[in-house]
């Protein structure tokens, strides 16, 4: 197990998340994909932190986890508000604004 393994795995997870955000149409699934991306970042931080023998990277993970929790609260609140307003949350149906 070298640092490469961690980083390649984190890149795979990050890509799965990014593709999920771009291709899926349900905000909840898109949101879960974003969380997957954030956790891929956490994995990269821990991997680099081990490789560099620096504890900083692990401290960053704490900060990212709390920020992600705040993001969950705000994001779910918006999704719930939309659900209350129109009983559906599909992104394609949520499209009163067009360019």
């Amino acid at each position, binding site marked *: 197990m070298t640092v490469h393994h961690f980083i390649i795995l984190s890149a795979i997870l990050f890509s799965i998340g990014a593709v999920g955000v771009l291709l899926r149409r349900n905000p909840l699934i898109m949101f879960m994909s974003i969380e997957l991306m954030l956790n891929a970042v956490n994995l990269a931080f821990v991997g680099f932190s081990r490789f560099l023998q*620096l504890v900083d990277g692990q401290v960053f993970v704490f900060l990212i986890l709390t920020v992600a929790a705040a993001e969950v609260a705000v994001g779910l609140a918006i999704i719930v508000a939309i659900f209350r307003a129109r009983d559906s949350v599909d992104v394609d149906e949520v499209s009163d*604004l067009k*360019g």
Partner: protein
Amino acid sequence: MNLDLNLQVIAPALIVALSLLLVLLGEVFLPASQRRWLGYLALIGLLGAAVVAAMLWGANLSGFGKMVVADAFGLFLTLIILLGAALSVLLAFDFVRAHQLDTGEFFALVLSAVVGMIGMVTATDLIVIFLALELLSLPLYVLAAFKRADKRSLEAGLKYFLLGAFASAFFLYGIAFVFGGTGTTNLGRIAAVLGASPRSDVALVGMGLLGVGFAFKVALVPFHWWTPDVYEGAPTVVTAFMSVAVKAAAFGAFFRVFLVALPELAADWRALLAVIAVLTMTLGNVAALLQSNVKRMLAYSSIAHAGYILIALVAMGVNGAGSALFYLLAYTLTNLGAFGAVIALSDGTRERLELNDFAGVAKAQPLVAAALTILLLSLAGFPPFAGFTGKFFIFGAAVESGWAWLAVIGVLNSLISAYFYLRPVVQMYMVEPAGGWNRLRVAPFVAFVLAIAVIGVLALGIVPAPVIALASGGFLK
């Protein structure tokens, strides 16, 4: 424990944070009829922070183990952000009442975003920049969706949230790679490591990802598509605040990261950003030509302005950063003023947002029409207004650093933009009113904002020298 804290470095942010906590407590302990005072409380906090920021000027302090600095660049942007926030709060006073939004919560969210913005422009550590970015983004997601009864506002909030969080993930992944490639997240030390060691591919990947994150936040092509929807759907006051303050904060961090931490990689990012600047200006202006909704038009116009500011980053150096700061100040005054005019012309909750709603406004509201005309001319870059001097400095910096062709494309774009900025003016002065609108009274606060914007735009346009001198103070490394 010897921690080099230097609390005064973050004093402006602390004052805003304190007023945020007081506003939150006021919202739940004051009776509903007294909540108007919370707006004044927010204003006092913003003014206090501005006074403290002005007092820190010139001292070039750094604190928290070089994680934050109060240098000329950061303080100038802090003042721009505080100005933008204060004007937005003034615009919001009557807006939140007319649209029945929660007063205290609204001001608390604005203040919270301001704390994040100040943090973002004064931070010199990537992790602090990230935390500040989230602190400014999260309240803005809520603000965009703040009109809970309006499906379009909710939709704007959802889109802004999903794409903002997506961008944050890219930004964060960039930080991880820069950390992996250099072993530090401090901007100064990143530059030292990159200068001393051979080219690091890991750091290069990190730079690219950071660039994507920033491009989302400041709305550069091809990461701009969320902007029109979010700007159109969000409540007008929020759009006004977002369009200026977020841009100032995100560009501040963008410039600082690329000019302080990554100048060693300039050969890799300069040409790429130049191409993006061309695409952003052109697409923003051409798309704005096609809009009939004023909020959407101003959204595309804000994309185009991000392109102009990006030219300053490509120019690099003191002139580049200084001209960008001057431009951001001019843009803040002008754009807030333009949105202020849109708010001034609204009739209760009904707003003049379509082009033909502006027909004949010059007869009903000659002063507002005159102000809006001046502000739109400034956005288009006509002399003697601030928009002209701002563009002049940016294009000048580009020519000096050998990017004359970029300046030429910028000038051509300004010419295109004149067409769509003048369309509302033509409607106001040359078309007969359509009728159906009440004769409206402009709220004193909104009139005050318009006056400040017009005076500021004229002052910056006619005597720019002292301000550009202040803006060119540079970074503390």
